[in-house]
């Protein structure tokens, strides 16, 4: 970690560029306390400075409050519909989705859904803004009418009311669409640059200038990226023609994710060539017309990649000598300061000044959520707002210092009165003149503040203004606004004259230093997400400092010289049976991962004998001791993370992220079941029986459990079943899938190392005939856990039942015919991203994977081509490469079955798209992701376990019929729903007979203890793995 305060030394940026670059990545998830302690001195004013800054802020706010007409429309809207109210959120939801709904029925239902739940009356007349009152009255009126047709108990109201409703629906829809247009008009400066320039003229007369952005969704297809590029080109041309003034020319801001469908670290090669070319074209044109270009900042995962690209563009001939090519830096990022330092040094080296917009950052909550989901070791952003403000001021102190501002043109974007006033003070104090920096604000926000500022000084203020069709922009802007909801509270307090000024002008350094801890104690680190157990850890493969050292550890196991040698393990002994099988890597059959001996009949018998004999002692051990073994196992797996990942690659053909998720799930299973066992199995529980007497029961083990697991989660499911059976007090004979026995062998070795006695747990690799059969036909087997196909589950069940002993528990997780339902309120970009991931990630080899997607006909012509385009961007390849999205399928048998299905469907239905296969695919067993359009789910008989998606169009009114056909398939594992209409989601949720339902997200990747997993009907017996009732089924409940 570097000394932050040293950046103020003028020679700091003269260090070698590479040395400065090295400072960036390690700060990605640096300990927040440590790093803020470094940063605070850089932001901390002296006593005299503090007084100046505080006075300046107080004066600014007092002045603003005097100009009561300067509040903009959006400020007024946020003031009335603060985002911490239900109505505020509902209004934004409506604005986000309504305009894209093409069909009347869905639009009406959606309006009703949104408007009927809120208390609009309370907002009427509260606001002085005509715009806000107009929309409130509209909402109030419609809110009343749409709720009229149903009584509270759900029965239809009388005929008259229903007629009112029917007559008024088109009127309401029209009114709402009109209201959304008005909102769009407020948020969006113009539908074209020409309109924006013309509408912006009044502000420019006041002294403002602009940066325009064709904001919108990220491109998921090459066609969308082309479309965005064209509109940026046009924008540059239009701005180039602007003749208003040569001083403070408007600039264009560019969102890179709109210009390339795969702007991500895994596709760095493409980013550095294809995306580079696109932006270079824009720069060349912009430079010829003297229109500055700013690269927008996006998610933390893309920061390092964006800097690489920026550097390449900046050093290119097209940019050299220009000085108007800049970028955005987010102060909420822990890496912000070293990024600025590196940029200053880069600029110093080349001699072209870099304009840098310093913002606070707009993806804060998604950054936090993502890290929690992925088990990242820390956060890339600060967890307190005041820490971001501190970072902002620390960065400002650097940017405004003489050596930095000589190389960087700082552009301070903020709507916070204190920040603005403080920046002005710092600039004055450091001798920066008004033409050495500028302020920026968003269109429609912060008018009051900046109108005052611009009146009092000759500083340049640039308005960042979205340009484009309301339909495309409003959803995006609303989402940004919601993510950035904290803003609304400041607007609120700024305008509210009753709120004491003194409370608005606390210096963030003072606030932060007054806290007990610098990090926010209410936001747990990803590792501490759960109160009662540690969350599993995962490295972030997008971040150099996190991933590169981790990858080096995996690489140790990736060479052909590393070969695993595995055997059956019985009584702790490796049993060489002579029946050796080598395990080929699914992506390249010329490579092997190792060799395994299969168990023979004698080995199986011996294992069962030992397990039976070991049961009494093991089940008599306190549950807490058994749980300790599981916790130890979890730690051992994390210690051997790299080796297990290498096995996932080489034996199972799993991609990098899939392999991380695999290990994480196994770790989570161990810790979750350990915790469950401690709470429910350690002590007897009391209950009053039906006759009123007090009784005590205890959950105990049943005996020898057979665990039979599949190859698709060779570590997670294997370990999950085995440790569940063990922790309850059973002894276990485990048969892993033939394809993936090496990793199972390592797991058993680790379990023994973790303290599970060697006579309690035995590994029996082999095929169904030699190993599976005796493990299900032996009379001593007291229960069985199985994950695999429905057919095999039935067979196993039959064998067990035929033994002539009392029935035993069978816990079976089997197949699915998983659907996703998409209505016209959903956001196509989100749908396509989630559908592609659900259907093709892990080459479709997940029980939960999407097989049949139902798209409402009204939007099918938008969604289906997008799926096609997104599929063309999927990379099928070697699973251990970061660039690979889809790896191989497990073996030849699976490949043949899938290719046969593709052949069949090509004849029977319409091919939507098929991804490309690389040349080396012939060395292994690859299947190209393929999508077909079919007319009904009935066209499919059984589950096809691979990367094949089927798409069905449906009419909105047939939704219930569709749910019926899905239910009638008999399977019931997962289902995805994409809709903004909560009533629709609730209706589907209540009717669909599935085990795991996912709303507005992908439908794969259930997390232990968060989304307990398992199906019903043909999809499994339950209870759910990773859920609170799972262990109980492995046990017997006995009175004491």
């Amino acid at each position, binding site marked *: 970690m570097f000394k932050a305060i040293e950046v103020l030394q003028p020679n700091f940026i003269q260090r070698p560029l590479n040395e400065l670059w090295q400072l960036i990545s390690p700060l990605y998830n640096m300990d927040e306390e440590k790093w803020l302690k470094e940063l605070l001195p850089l932001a901390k004013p002296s006593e005299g400075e503090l007084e100046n800054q505080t006075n300046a802020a107080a004066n600014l706010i007092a002045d603003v409050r005097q100009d009561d007409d300067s509040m903009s429309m959006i400020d007024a809207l946020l003031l009335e519909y603060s985002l911490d109210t239900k109505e505020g959120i509902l209004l934004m939801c409506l604005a986000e989705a309504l305009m894209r709904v093409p069909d009347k029925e869905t639009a009406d239902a959606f309006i009703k859904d949104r408007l009927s739940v809120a208390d609009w009356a309370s907002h009427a007349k509260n606001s002085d803004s005509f715009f806000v009152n107009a929309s409130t009255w509209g909402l109030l009126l419609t809110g009343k009418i749409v709720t009229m047709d149903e009584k509270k108990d759900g029965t239809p109201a009388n005929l008259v009311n229903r007629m009112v409703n029917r007559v008024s629906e088109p009127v309401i829809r029209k009114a709402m669409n009109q209201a959304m247009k008005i909102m769009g008009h407020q948020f969006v400066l113009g539908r074209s640059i020409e309109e924006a320039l013309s509408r912006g003229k009044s502000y420019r007369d006041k002294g403002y200038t602009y940066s325009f952005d064709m904001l919108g969704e990220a491109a998921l297809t090459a066609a969308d990226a082309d479309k965005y590029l064209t509109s940026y080109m046009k924008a540059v041309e239009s701005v180039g023609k602007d003749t208003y003034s040569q001083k403070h020319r408007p600039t264009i801001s560019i969102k890179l994710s709109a210009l390339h469908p795969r702007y991500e670290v895994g596709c760095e090669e493409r980013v550095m060539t294809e995306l580079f070319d696109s932006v270079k074209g824009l720069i060349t044109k912009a430079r010829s017309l003297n229109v500055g270009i700013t690269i927008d900042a996006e998610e933390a995962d893309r920061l390092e990649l964006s800097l690489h690209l920026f550097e390449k563009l900046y050093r290119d001939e097209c940019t050299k000598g220009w000085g108007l090519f800049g970028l955005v830096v987010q102060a909420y990022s822990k890496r912000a300061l070293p990024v600025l330092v590196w940029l200053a040094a880069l600029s110093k080296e080349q001699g072209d000044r870099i304009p840098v917009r310093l913002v606070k950052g707009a993806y804060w909550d998604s950054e936090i959520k993502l890290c929690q989901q992925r088990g990242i070791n820390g956060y890339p952003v600060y967890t307190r707002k005041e820490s971001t403000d501190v970072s902002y001021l620390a960065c400002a102190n650097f940017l405004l210092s003489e050596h930095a501002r000589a190389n960087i043109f700082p552009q301070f974007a903020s709507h916070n009165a204190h920040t603005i006033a403080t920046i002005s003070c710092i600039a004055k104090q450091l001798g920066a003149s008004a033409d050495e920096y500028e302020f920026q604000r968003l269109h429609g926000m912060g008018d009051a503040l900046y109108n005052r500022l611009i009146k009092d000084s000759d500083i340049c203020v640039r308005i960042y203004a979205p340009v484009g069709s309301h339909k495309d922009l409003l959803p995006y802007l609303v989402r940004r606004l919601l993510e950035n909801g904290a803003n609304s509270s400041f607007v609120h307090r700024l305008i509210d004259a009753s709120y004491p000024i003194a409370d608005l002008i606390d210096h963030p350094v003072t606030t932060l230093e007054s806290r007990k801890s610098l990090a*926010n104690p209410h936001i747990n680190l990803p590792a501490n997400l759960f109160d009662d157990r540690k969350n599993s850890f995962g490295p972030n493969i997008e971040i150099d400092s996190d991933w590169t050292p981790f990858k080096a550890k995996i690489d140790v196991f990736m060479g052909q010289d590393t070969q695993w040698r595995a055997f059956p393990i019985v009584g702790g002994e490796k049993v060489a049976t002579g029946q050796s099988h080598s395990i080929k890597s699914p992506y390249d059959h010329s490579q092997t991962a190792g060799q395994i001996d299969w168990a023979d009949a004698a080995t199986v018998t011996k294992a069962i004998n030992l397990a039976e004999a070991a049961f009494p002692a093991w089940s008599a051990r306190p549950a807490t001791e058994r749980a300790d073994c599981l916790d130890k196992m979890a730690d051992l797996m994390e210690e051997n993370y790299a080796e297990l990942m290498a096995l996932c690659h080489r034996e199972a053909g799993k991609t990098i992220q899939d392999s991380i998720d695999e290990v994480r799930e196994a770790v989570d299973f161990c810790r979750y079941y350990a915790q469950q066992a401690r709470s429910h199995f350690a002590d007897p529980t009391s209950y009053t029986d039906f006759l009123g007497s007090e009784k005590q029961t205890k959950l105990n083990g049943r005996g020898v459990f057979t665990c039979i697991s599949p190859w698709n989660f060779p570590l997670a499911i294997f370990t999950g079943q085995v440790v569940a059976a063990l922790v309850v007090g059973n002894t276990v004979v485990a048969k892993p899938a033939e394809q993936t026995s090496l990793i199972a062998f390592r797991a058993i070795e680790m379990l023994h190392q973790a303290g599970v006695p060697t006579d309690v747990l035995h590994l029996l690799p082999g095929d169904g005939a030699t190993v599976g059969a005796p493990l299900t036909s032996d009379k001593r087997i007291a229960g069985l856990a199985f994950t695999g196909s429905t057919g095999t589950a039935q067979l196993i069940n*039959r064998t067990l039942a035929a033994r002539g002993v009392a029935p035993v528990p069978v816990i079976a997780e089997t197949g699915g015919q998983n659907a996703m339902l998409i209505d016209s309120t959903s956001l196509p970009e989100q749908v396509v991203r989630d559908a592609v991931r659900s259907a093709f990630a892990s080459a479709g080899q997940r029980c939960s994977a999407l097989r049949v997607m139902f798209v409402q006909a009204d939007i099918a012509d938008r969604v289906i081509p997008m799926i096609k385009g997104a599929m063309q961007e999927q990379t099928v390849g070697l699973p251990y490469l970061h660039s690979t999205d889809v790896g191989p399928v497990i073996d030849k048998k699976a490949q043949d079955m899938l290719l046969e299905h593709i052949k069949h469907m090509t004849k029977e239905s319409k091919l939507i798209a098929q991804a490309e296969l690389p040349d080396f695919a012939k060395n292994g067993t690859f299947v190209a992701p393929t999508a077909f359009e079919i007319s009904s789910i009935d066209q499919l008989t059984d589950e096809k376990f691979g990367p094949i998606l089927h798409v069905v169009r449906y009419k909105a009114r047939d939704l219930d019929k569709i749910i019926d056909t899905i239910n009638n398939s008999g399977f019931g594992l997962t289902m995805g729903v994409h809709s903004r209409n909560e009533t629709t989601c609730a209706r589907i949720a209540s009717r669909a007979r599935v085990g795991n339902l996912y709303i507005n997200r992908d439908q794969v990747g259930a997390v232990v203890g968060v989304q307990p997993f398992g199906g019903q009907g043909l999809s499994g017996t339950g209870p759910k793995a990773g859920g609170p009732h799972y262990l109980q089924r492995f046990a017997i409940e006995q009175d004491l």
Partner: protein
Amino acid sequence: MTIVQPIQIQVAQKVFEAWDKLGVNGRAEALKKALNTFPDAQRKMAAWQIDNAEKSIAETRVMPGPTGERNELSNQGRGVFLCSSFIEGDNAKVGLVGQVFTALIAGNPVITVGPTGQEVMDMIAPFVAEGVVQNIAESAQDSLIEADHLAGIATLCDPAQAQLFSQRLAAKSGLICQLVEETDAENLSSIAKPHYLLRFVTERTVSNNTTAIGGNATLLELGSMND
């Protein structure tokens, strides 16, 4: 080959969704009305099963997890259950009532067998929707056991019969039909236990991405909380 499913299964399938949707509390309200007509021990058993369900499976459980997502775990009925007793006597009857009420409160439609079953069903039928409880003649039992959509059988029988049932159910194609057997007619040591109920439910997880339209309100709240 199209196999004609027994009419009782079809009837039960039709009412299943509505019965299940009532939720534990809704079903408890209906079933409690039937309690008074049952003799003492049977009534106590039925009431105890209802009470147990209200305590343990009525509420949707909110699972912990990352912010910006709401994860809920709830319980539903599995489908049509056949409840039967092959053992005579008062205690066995208490057991049968226990099976029936457990299956019902869990959200399943129930079919019983023969005159004993009829007696139990007659006392419940007035308080539930038509088709939620049905009874069949013993002669019809086999076709019901073979039926495709039978979700499970709860039976009070001797160990040998339990094995036979287990084999018959395993021989079927389609879903794995649950056998919930009780072979201890004297103490009802399975039926009278708190976890017995879990054999009659299927669990459902609903994961709702609350940030789908943007903001993560929970997190914003946490972020602005004062310590």
